[in-house]
């Protein structure tokens, strides 16, 4: 790396601490090199192990009722896992709610297995020391939609409502830095440090971003769920962390999932 590039990098790093940075002209080649790196690591994804763990949890009797989750209705009928994630979030009659994957899993784990939703929500994400059951289940279910086109409906009035609220949340500026999701994710050529940020106004960008989660994060050595991804965005905006499986995160997920419609689901992904 020559001196001018080093200076540029230091400048970018300094700017990055205050938020997003508009990519400088002529840095396209670094993006290409990162794309090359991502291509090279795409085979052999450790997220497979989280999928295997989730599948085992799905099929193993558990909870006070000692039941498996194999009768869980993820929207395509009891026990249908294949393709379910490509149509989530959706409206569920039995709960009279729009639910995303994680909130629906929470429903199934409470109703079928008799587990307490509070106890499950207490460990929504994996840590280095302890994997999260609901997170592994989400990885497994999502993986069963690999290659299936995203087709999230907004036909039901409650689905339409969730989409509209999600859109408002995406654009809602607040917090100590007066940030919104859209501050970073509604403009092209914006990045944090070396990472180009997807512009959700551009269909192709939105599709590529949404369909790659859950993902194994190399930097953390863990498989991360979509809900975790959202929480981390809120953390970076200095917002309070949303409650697990809250309506706000479901609605936001609805907005983002709909913007990915038409693209084949490609997760679980493998990321830096």
């Amino acid at each position: 790396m020559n001196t001018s590039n080093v200076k540029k990098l230091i400048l970018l790093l300094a700017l990055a601490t205050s938020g997003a940075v508009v990519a400088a002209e002529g840095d396209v080649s670094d993006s290409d090199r990162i794309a090359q790196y991502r291509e090279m690591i795409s085979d052999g994804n450790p997220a497979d192990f989280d999928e295997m763990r989730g599948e085992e949890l799905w099929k193993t009797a558990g909870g006070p009722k000692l039941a498996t989750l194999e009768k869980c209705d993820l929207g395509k009928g009891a026990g249908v896992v294949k393709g379910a994630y490509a149509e989530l979030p959706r409206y569920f009659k039995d709960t009279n709610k729009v639910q995303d994957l994680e909130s629906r899993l929470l429903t199934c784990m409470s109703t079928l297995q008799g587990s307490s939703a509070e106890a499950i929500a207490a460990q929504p994400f994996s840590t280095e020391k302890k994997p999260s059951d609901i997170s592994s289940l989400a990885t497994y279910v999502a993986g069963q939609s690999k290659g299936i086109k995203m087709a999230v409906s907004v036909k039901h009035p409650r689905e339409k409502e969730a989409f509209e609220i999600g859109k408002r949340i995406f654009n809602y500026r607040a917090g100590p830095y007066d940030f919104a999701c859209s501050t970073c994710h509604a403009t092209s050529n914006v990045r944090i440090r070396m990472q180009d940020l997807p512009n959700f106004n551009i269909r192709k960008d939105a599709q590529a971003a949404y369909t790659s989660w859950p993902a194994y994060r190399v930097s953390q050595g863990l498989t991360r769920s979509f809900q975790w991804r959202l929480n981390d965005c809120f953390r970076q905006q200095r917002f309070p962390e949303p409650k697990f499986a809250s309506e706000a995160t479901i609605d936001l997920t609805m907005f983002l999932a709909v913007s990915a419609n038409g693209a084949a689901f490609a997760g679980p992904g493998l990321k830096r």
Partner: protein
Amino acid sequence: MGNPMKIRAAVKDGVTEVKILMQHEMETGMRKDADGALVPAWFITDVKAQYQGRTVLEAQFGQSISKNPYLVFRFQGGAAGEKLTVSWVDNKGDKRSDEATITA
């Protein structure tokens, strides 16, 4: 006992390509945890792949191999339906062995 590996072995034009993904922390012994304590070294030291009683690859690892090690190699021979065994041992003496079926 270690966690299972994921092994894919596919034969094409008389050559079998083997892809192995192992589950292991591969701690360098130089990393500190959240409390500032050094995390002891813990890594796979030896790997061996065998096909029909014959060793097709042997490897020694140091601390610089990534967490959840990944290997790709190829050997001449192999037919769909035949078995391949991969084993590893780590510096604490933990072991793991898994078998895979070669596919066409």
